[in-house]
């Protein structure tokens, strides 16, 4: 007979339990009823801070969290359980529903701890745990925005969650103060040395840290908040976020007489069972082996144990790895194993490099033979290779393991036994991953992720997955094509360093064969990015795809379309009429594009120069609609006209479009500028999008529409125009240097090691020391720009290529014909001869 398990709480762990149970319960022994307090299905709380990037709650929803198509699961959203009747084995919910159970699982998580500071309930005081909390914080920030200057905020608590909150506030354009009772930041994870460095690195990012003190009182002060710290400091604030730890949500358990710990938490045994054998507790509400685990991986492990137990298994939860690695505002922090050297006789080996801004500590056993734990701040690259070594013999001297970052003393995956955990979030061992590679033919990282779940949570083990692929003999080829073993980025460096200006020289010296339709356009684009004259000059013409070769867009019947540049989408009636006249005279099909310009279709190769002669005479220039280059910078009408606009978005869009016009890049580049937060220009769907703020501009990067739409991420906020242009210059040039061929900025950001944070480090903080070079390169582009179409019209040799037939220059192409549709000429489908005059 089918039994019923009731799950209280649909958080990360509750959802994992339902998934695990449904995956394994082949016989359908259990029906699952879930009651959720929150009004939405389980979401990725670990990634909560990223909600600030796009305010898109749907993106955070966990996979399969709606159990669509699974009749065995009933999910009741927004209906919390209010009481448990253990004698009757039934729960009561807020809506009055009474649900009997055979087994009950409490997965109620935890609640933020708010210290008893006077004034903590004033408007403008927040906690940081749910999507609604972030919506409320956003509303406070927006209220603050109507004031003068930059808003300011206080975060109470300098632990992991406090720093997450500080990051969110910074991304929202507010300057945060972080107040931490302990003498250092992240007291649970790092030691004093690491904490000191962390403070220094974080303070560089416009966050003020107040360690060793606490909030003593909060008062309302003329619509703002005044906070007094225990050390006497007074802070004038717009909002306050409490993030000073968590308390397990154990009230239901207390009310029905289940055992709870002295400092909270529902007591469970190794089977995750409470003091009532029909009731389990998992995740952050559970007190397992005397402790509450505030991380998701242990919660997942508990969920797996309970799923197994419900199906008659004997799995046990035997404690969990509390290792963490995170990147907070671009600063790496990792701690693993016995980070505080609590083990008897433990020895510490520390390398504190104030110049490089890195702090690295290993904790080893008294005989210095076994690794017990460690702390890494500033650069945690070696976390992935060191963490699995905890409890194992050291492969080298501790000092050698701490050698300069990235070295890891040569600790490769090779040094690890098969049972070592590579992914601690999902408990995947090296053996599991090797199995996936060798037996399930997982030959790249995405396939390993799909087979094993390794690397799908925090992602810190991804470099190890790559190493494992290599050690299993799977080659990750980055070769551009059969003619070059280099990646596009490597070829770019070669061309830049050697000053080679032709494809033939490049392929002769660094490649093989004669080239193809992959490497030729890629190299042509590199040559153009580095400024090598007209893209149809000499040999370059033969390298170009047909669009670039004829400076127009090939359409299905072999004709081309023509798009003159209309910077920012602003156009005078006279110029509009000029376009209309050309379209009418050449019988071109006319359509408005999504990029605020006009596309003219149906031009034959030999008509293109005549059309462009007219357009150039009317003051137009190439719109590069045909190129992997800047397309348009779209704009809303902005503060000139709009009642809501706060900045001149049209003016900026035109300036940006004229600055970057003609810039060749690995893929097309689109941009937009919005004059206020209403975002009418849809800037966040662009490769680089700018949104006006009261006092400046926010820059977003990496957005695109298409098959896989992606909202752009905030790169810098509230900067003046000069800074904005400088950052865009650097961003675009860094992308052009390092992206793969035909890789949009969105994919590039997702695949570049270190992601957005790394890119921000490079283009904002100049971590690679190349900013000046990138700017100089862009300056060269800007001064070297010349209209490609004007260049063709002025050069008889280039003009001569625009003929349909080499032996009959005037003859029309007999395969091209048109018919009328809604009053315009459209192609006759090929193969069906039919001619209408146009």
């Amino acid at each position, binding site marked *: 007979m089918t039994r019923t398990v009731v799950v209280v709480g649909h958080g990360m762990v509750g959802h994992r339990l339902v998934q695990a149970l449904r995956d394994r319960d082949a016989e359908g022994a259990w029906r699952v009823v879930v009651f959720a307090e929150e009004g939405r299905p389980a979401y990725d709380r670990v990634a909560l801070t990223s909600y600030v990037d796009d305010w898109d709650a749907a993106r955070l929803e966990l996979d399969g969290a709606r159990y669509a198509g699974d009749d065995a699961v009933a999910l009741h959203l927004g209906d919390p359980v209010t009481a448990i009747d253990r004698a009757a084995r039934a729960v009561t919910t807020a809506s009055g529903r009474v649900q009997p159970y055979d087994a009950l699982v409490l997965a109620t998580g935890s609640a933020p701890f708010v210290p008893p500071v006077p004034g903590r309930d004033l408007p403008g005081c927040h906690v940081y745990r749910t999507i609604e909390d972030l919506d409320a914080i956003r509303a406070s920030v927006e209220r603050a925005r109507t004031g003068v200057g930059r808003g300011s905020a206080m975060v109470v608590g300098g632990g992991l969650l406090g720093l997450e909150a500080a990051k969110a506030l910074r991304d929202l354009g507010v300057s945060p103060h972080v107040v931490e009772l302990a003498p250092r930041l992240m007291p649970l994870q790092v030691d004093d040395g690491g904490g000191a460095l962390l403070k220094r690195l974080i303070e560089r990012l416009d966050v003020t840290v107040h360690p060793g003190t606490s909030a003593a009182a909060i008062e309302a002060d003329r619509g703002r908040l005044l906070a007094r710290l225990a050390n006497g400091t007074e802070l004038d604030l717009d909002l306050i976020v409490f993030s000073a730890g968590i308390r397990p949500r154990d009230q239901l358990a207390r009310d029905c007489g289940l055992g709870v710990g002295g400092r909270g938490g529902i007591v469970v045994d190794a089977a995750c069972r409470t003091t009532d054998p029909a009731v389990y507790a998992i995740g952050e509400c559970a007190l397992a082996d005397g402790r509450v685990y505030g991380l998701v991986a242990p919660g997942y492990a508990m969920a797996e144990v309970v799923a197994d137990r419900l199906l008659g298994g004997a799995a046990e939860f035997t404690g969990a790895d509390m290792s963490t690695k995170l990147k907070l505002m671009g600063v790496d922090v990792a701690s693993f194993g016995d980070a505080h050297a609590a083990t008897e006789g433990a020895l510490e080996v520390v390398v504190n490099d104030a110049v490089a801004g890195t702090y690295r500590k290993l904790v080893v056993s008294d005989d210095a033979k076994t690794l017990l734990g460690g702390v890494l701040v500033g650069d945690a690259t070696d976390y992935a290779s060191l963490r699995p070594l905890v409890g194992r013999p050291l492969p080298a001297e501790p000092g050698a393991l701490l050698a300069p970052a990235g070295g890891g003393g040569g600790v490769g995956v090779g040094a690890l036994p098969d049972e070592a955990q590579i992914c601690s979030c999902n408990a995947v061992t090296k053996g599991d991953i090797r199995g996936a590679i060798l037996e399930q033919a997982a030959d790249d990282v995405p396939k390993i992720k799909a087979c094993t779940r390794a690397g799908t949570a925090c992602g810190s083990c991804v470099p190890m997955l790559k190493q494992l692929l290599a050690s299993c003999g799977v080659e990750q080829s980055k070769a551009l094509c059969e003619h070059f073993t280099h990646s596009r980025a490597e070829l770019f460096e070669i061309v830049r360093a050697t000053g080679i200006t032709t494809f033939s020289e490049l392929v002769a010296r660094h490649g093989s064969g*004669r080239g193809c339709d992959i490497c030729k356009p890629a190299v042509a684009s590199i040559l153009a990015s580095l400024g090598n004259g007209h893209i149809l000059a000499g040999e370059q013409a033969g390298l170009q795809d047909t669009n670039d070769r004829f400076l127009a867009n*090939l359409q299905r019947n072999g004709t081309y379309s023509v798009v003159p540049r209309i910077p920012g989408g602003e156009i005078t009636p006279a110029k509009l009429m000029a376009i209309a006249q050309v379209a009418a005279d050449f019988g071109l099909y006319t359509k408005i594009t999504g990029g605020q310009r006009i596309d003219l279709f149906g031009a034959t190769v030999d008509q293109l120069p005549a059309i462009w002669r007219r357009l150039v005479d009317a003051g137009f220039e190439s719109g590069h609609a045909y190129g992997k280059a800047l397309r348009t910078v779209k704009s809303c009408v902005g503060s000139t006209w709009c009642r809501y606009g706060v900045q001149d978005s049209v003016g900026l869009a035109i300036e940006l479009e004229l600055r970057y016009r003609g810039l060749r890049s690995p893929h097309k580049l689109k941009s937009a500028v919005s004059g206020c937060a209403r975002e009418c220009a849809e800037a966040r769907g662009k490769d680089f999008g700018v949104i006006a703020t009261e006092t400046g501009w926010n820059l977003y990067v990496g957005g695109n529409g298409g098959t896989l739409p992606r909202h752009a991420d905030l790169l810098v906020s509230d900067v003046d125009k000069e800074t904005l242009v400088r950052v865009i210059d650097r961003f675009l040039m860094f992308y052009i240097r390092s992206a793969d061929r035909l890789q949009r900025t969105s994919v590039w950001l997702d695949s570049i090691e270190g992601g957005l944070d790394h890119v921000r480090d490079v283009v904002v903080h100049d971590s690679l020391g190349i900013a000046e070079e990138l700017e100089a390169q862009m300056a060269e582009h800007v001064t070297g720009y010349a209209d490609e179409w004007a260049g063709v019209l002025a050069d008889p040799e280039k003009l001569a290529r625009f003929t*349909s*037939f080499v032996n009959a220059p005037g003859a029309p*192409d007999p395969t091209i014909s048109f018919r009328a549709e809604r009053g315009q000429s459209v192609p006759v489908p*090929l193969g069906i001869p039919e001619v209408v005059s146009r």
Partner: protein
Amino acid sequence: MTSTVPAPAWTAVCPLSAIEPETGVAALLPDGTQVAVFRTRDAVYALGNIDPFSQAAVLARGIVGDLRGTPVVASPMHKQRFDLRTGECLDDQGVSVPTYPVRVVGGTIQLGRP
């Protein structure tokens, strides 16, 4: 009475120098056929100009290169590659375009009848 004048065996198309090495041009034969004429570093080839996948007359505008040593042109429409020597499509077995005899006489490219 009508008399049929036999078409000359070779049609002069253009000087060799009119085609940049490693590119192609389109030529129109007296019967209306379109031919794509390619010049590589060391040879001249002639194929039908119609891309069999799209029916558009565009092959002459494709990128010329090599696929493991075989000289090819990639259709500018959807990138299928054709062997310049045989006209065979290397990405879709069984599809091919016609080839035409071609020669260079006194610096002029001449096309023959297939």
